[in-house]
């Protein structure tokens, strides 16, 4: 199935709009998915990410716009002629067919010879590590196995584009983590352009080449996981991905100050937007152990320390009452030696981690 790699197709979405009554499910969305890329649409429920996926699959007819797979305009093409694979949230495996019946279904529709069907079905099942499961009934499978069968069915006809609609949301955490890696490996192996929908930010960060953060029917930010996490475009993106605390800062005379103290920061946002300082818990440090002179220091009063096994979280109040959290690693008896509630501590934030973002929701 390696020849698929050369057959992966780019997707071009131009000015696609879809309204339901007064609600803009998709508000003039434009997006390019590169050939062979793994792109995730990430957003809260009702953000329009699923609507966009349904437009790609052909199940939702937009009000207007253009959609190209490669060079072909497909916006008016019915779903059964689009030749894209899709993994549904609830798998949508046909309960009246066996595993092999399900996986072979798209091949039978394409009038593939019987012997070839058998061979390719088995090959697809082996790809998802379910070799020999062909004769089983769908009801005999566990959630994880159903998920794999659904994937096998969506890749067996070698589509050049693969769509996945929250395929892991029904699985328990351990299996989900494992399947994330497997799906990612599968993508490396097969190389088809993949659009993946999820509301789970960790899943998006783990799996994607690029992430499109969607809200209110618009794409808030499109970038690599690191860009999205480290330099969120606005407050919504910063809030949705990872934990963060926002502090109001003032920008004047080329200086950015918080509570009267100038901040050392890396990049500076160009515009005169209202700005916020974004603090990620894992980027804060307890001072003063080896505070570099490139760090910003904050005085705070500890309010609580929570032990979480692999790490601890310390909650502390800044003088203006804002609560910040600090996540730290645990080694030895580190927790026992930590500050207790009521203690005054100094928190350090490296200049490189001092991220200023625009104070709007996009």
């Amino acid at each position, binding site marked *: 199935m390696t020849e698929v790699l050369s057959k992966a197709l780019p997707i071009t979405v131009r000015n696609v709009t879809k309204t339901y009554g007064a609600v803009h499910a998709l508000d003039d969305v434009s997006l390019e998915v590169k050939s062979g890329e793994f792109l995730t649409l990430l957003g809260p429920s009702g953000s329009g990410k699923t609507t966009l996926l349904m437009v790609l699959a*052909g199940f939702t007819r937009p009000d207007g716009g253009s959609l190209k797979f490669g060079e072909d305009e497909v916006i008016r093409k019915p779903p059964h002629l689009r030749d894209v694979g899709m993994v*549904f949230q609830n798998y*949508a495996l046909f309960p009246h067919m066996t595993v092999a019946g399900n996986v072979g279904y798209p091949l039978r529709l394409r009038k593939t010879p019987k012997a070839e069907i058998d061979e390719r079905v088995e090959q697809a099942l082996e790809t998802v590590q379910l070799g020999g499961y062909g004769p089983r009934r769908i009801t005999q499978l566990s959630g994880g196995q159903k998920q794999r069968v659904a994937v096998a069915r969506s890749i067996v006809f070698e589509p050049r584009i693969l769509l996945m609609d929250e395929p892991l949301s029904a699985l328990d955490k351990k299996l989900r983590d494992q399947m994330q890696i497997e799906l990612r490996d599968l993508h490396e192996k097969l190389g088809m352009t993949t659009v993946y929908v999820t509301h789970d930010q960790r899943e998006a960060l783990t799996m994607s080449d690029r992430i499109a953060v969607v809200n209110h029917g618009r794409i808030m930010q499109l970038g690599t996981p690191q860009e999205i996490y480290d330099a969120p475009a606005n407050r919504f993106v910063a809030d949705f991905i990872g934990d963060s605390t926002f502090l109001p800062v003032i920008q004047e005379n080329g200086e950015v100050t918080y509570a009267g103290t100038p901040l050392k920061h890396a990049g500076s946002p160009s515009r005169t937007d209202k700005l916020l300082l974004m603090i990620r818990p894992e980027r804060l440090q307890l001072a003063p152990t080896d505070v570099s002179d490139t760090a910003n220091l904050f005085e705070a009063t500890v309010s609580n320390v929570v032990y979480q096994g692999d790490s601890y979280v310390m909650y502390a109040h800044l003088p203006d009452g804002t609560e910040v959290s600090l996540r730290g690693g645990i080694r030895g008896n580190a927790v026992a030696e930590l500050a207790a509630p009521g203690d005054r501590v100094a928190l350090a934030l490296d200049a490189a981690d001092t991220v200023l973002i625009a104070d709007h929701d996009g």
Partner: protein
Amino acid sequence: MADVSLHMPHSDGLRRDGRLERLRLFGLSSPALLMVLVVLVIPVGWLFYVSFIGANGQFSLENYERMIERKSYYRIFVTTFQVSFLTTGLCILIGYPLAYFMSQLPNRWANIALITVLVPFWTSLLVRTYAWLVLLQKQGLVNQWAISLGVWDEPIKIVHNMTGTLIGMVHIMLPFLILPVYNAMKAIDHDYLKAASNLGASPRRAFWTVFFPLSAPGLLAGSLMVFVLCLGFFVTPAVLGGGKVIMVSMKIVSNIELFVNWGAASALGVVLLVLTVAILWVASRFTSLSNMTGGGH
């Protein structure tokens, strides 16, 4: 293990509790069991018993022998199956598309459609049958309209024969087919059809390869229900058949009312019962009978 369990604390007491609980549960269900005995086991047993009593009051097989010897009985069974098959077939042809249409309606409209199916279902059987008699007779509404619209030139006979019987039977049986089919169709997740479409199936292919097979248990259950009910049906063929469509149930009535021959009537009843059970048994090998009673999947 067995040794260990003997020494577990309270094991004797717990075992006694279990026995007591089973006894109590049996006691609680005894009224229902008694009911089954009184209204089912005794009457049906009595039916079997009477069917083996001859005209002289002694044990005899004459009631069954008569059925085999006389041609008229053979014809009656043939007619009964004919009417049942035709009614079931027509119900499927009319009811399946109707149920499909209903299942695709938005909920509000589906409920209205469902009520229009159910209202006749709740109306007296006799009223509906006589209504058809009025509609279908020579000077009835159907003939009048057909003539004024030029469909046919002079009144034709559409009642007091097989045609009339079938029209009435289909009308009365239709809800029994539509309801289980509609239920089965409602339970089909739209994602199955989306998946089929995504995998390359045209709407027609998706219907035949996915929707129809998934609705088939409901269709089988409904058809079975209609067929079994038809086998023992009396009022409609008696009123609309005009004496030309004699079914088993009608022969049973005449055996009792005209000839006061309880033995012959019982034997017919037994044969009908056995045939019905046999058909249900065969069908149960293909579908779960719980589909029929609305017990779900």
